[in-house]
């Protein structure tokens, strides 16, 4: 029994290693990733600098806004699993056939491989970004250890939520073989409702209330707001758990329905 468990663990570690190695091969792409992330942070720095010279945006001070911007950019480097994109590619190229022939469920394969990919990105994109930005813009980071720990937990659960969400989108791509439409929607949803670009507390009152009912704020805003502004950590955690359960059932249901109807492209 223990051997079987350790065998599974080794397999999952192997997937993660492959995800890691896959990105390791492309060193130049990594540099460019860091560079473009840094540029994006820079743009936002100057933007907000100008904005704050003429007033305040929401409840965030300039310093806090800077922290938010940098942290959001760092998170975006490693909390996306790309499950929707991977499934889309598999559907288009027909390599889905091979993935399904494995004795391991393909959702498991995707999850652990992305874990490896994101570990790589966390170390080699997010960390360098942090260092560069702190030096360039003097962003101050002085969070307590417990705060950071709880923040990490929130991010962890957010990661699971994002994985399930992207999995759902990926499964939806089976209905429309071209994933472009779904991708556009995803981009729109994340940009507007997740707090990726600016804290949701800066949104106008009515919109803020509406967005609060949606789960997407859990991707960026909720964890970040806790980190920077403090608040009820447990409440965010509970919300995340609830939405994870909702997503899990949606995904399982969709998966079962699709497995029956499946048509694989290409011969």
């Amino acid at each position, binding site marked *: 029994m223990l051997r079987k468990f350790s065998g599974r663990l080794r397999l999952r570690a192997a997937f993660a290693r492959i995800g890691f190695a896959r990105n390791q091969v492309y060193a130049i792409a990594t540099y460019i990733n860091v560079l473009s992330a840094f540029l994006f942070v820079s743009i936002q720095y100057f933007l907000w600098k100008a904005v704050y010279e003429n007033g305040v945006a929401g409840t965030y001070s300039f310093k806090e806004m800077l922290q938010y911007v940098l942290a959001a950019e760092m998170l975006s480097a490693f909390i996306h699993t790309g499950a929707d994109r991977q499934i889309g590619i598999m559907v288009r190229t027909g390599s889905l056939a091979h993935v399904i*022939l494995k*004795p391991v469920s393909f959702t498991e394969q995707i999850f652990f491989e992305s874990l490896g990919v994101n570990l790589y990105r966390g170390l080699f994109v997010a960390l360098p970004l942090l260092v560069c930005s702190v030096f360039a813009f003097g962003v101050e980071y002085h969070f307590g250890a417990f705060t950071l720990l709880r923040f990490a937990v929130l991010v962890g659960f957010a990661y699971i939520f994002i994985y399930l969400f992207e999995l759902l989108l990926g499964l939806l791509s089976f209905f429309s073989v071209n994933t472009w439409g779904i991708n556009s929607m995803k981009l729109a949803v994340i940009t507007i409702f997740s707090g990726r670009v600016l804290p949701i507390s800066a949104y106008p009152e009515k919109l803020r209330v509406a967005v609060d009912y949606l789960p997407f704020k859990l991707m960026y805003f909720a964890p970040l707001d806790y980190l920077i502004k403090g608040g009820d950590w447990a409440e965010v955690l509970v919300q995340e758990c609830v939405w994870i359960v909702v997503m899990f059932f949606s995904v399982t249901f969709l998966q079962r329905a699709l497995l029956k109807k499946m048509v694989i492209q290409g011969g």
Partner: protein
Amino acid sequence: MELIELKNLTKVYTVKDLTSMKDYFSALLGRVPEEKFFAVNDVSFSIAKGEFVGLIGRNGAGKSTLIKLLTGILTPSTGEISVFGRIPHKSRQQNNYKISAVFGQRTQLKWDISAYESFRLIEYMYGMQHDRWQFNIERFIKMLDLSAFIYKPVRTLSLGQRMRVELCAAFLYDPEIVFLDEPTIGLDIFAKEVIVDFLLEIRRTKQATVLLTTHDVSDIEQLCGRTIIMDKGKVLFDGNTAGIAEILEMGILVEFKCENKEVSLAPMPGKYQVTNLPHCLKIGGVEKAAVPQLVQAVMGQNRVLEIKVEPPDFEKVLKDFYASKIFRQA
């Protein structure tokens, strides 16, 4: 119960029939003319352990669909199907431990990293004993000559090299059933030879059951004792590879080149296709046993310069098959 059993298996697709611009607009409104397409139509056969079966058919005959049904990727519309005594699409992951597949134009290996890394993943995925994995790796590296490129990213390999590592991956975990879908497509003769030799060795030593789908009849003749021919979703022929031509009475072609312009042949018992040309006599449909007698007869009546004896052309056999839709069971 045999390893693989099919009874009246059918798979139907409804395909949207978009022939004119008007149809595209109707599609937007949700009203689309649909057509039923029988990818697999009432197919029945069984395969025993250790068999090497060839599956031939034109493009769109239903071969790939059949393989997808056998591997549980698709669910049947009607009929029964069992692999390892289980229903494929219900016990897919359980069966997958003992199945592997090679699809000619796609690879199961990770694109950006070396084949060796993918092999190591296979070791964990199928719960292999490390010693067995090591043994197989070394054996296959030798048999398929992989040492030169096994550590290079798969993306950088040529088609021939990719196919060889693909085969290594397919047999690495000692699967009981292996589906080979066009494994030699696009390969040069040397690469093909390596692969055919590899498969012959597998056939000689192991109890792996192989279902080989290909357009290449020479592969089938070399590797498969049994052949199934499909067309339009139906099984046209299921029997001994060697016996196909005999059963279809294709016969041997004997050609005589003679000094005399008019080649004479006394009427002989049996039905032959005789073609008379200046200085040449072609006789088709000859049984193997009747060849010496025929040769003697012609030589007795003519001054023969050259004799050519040709076994039946498998390709031609197939062509006639599809044309006449003969249904034969060996």
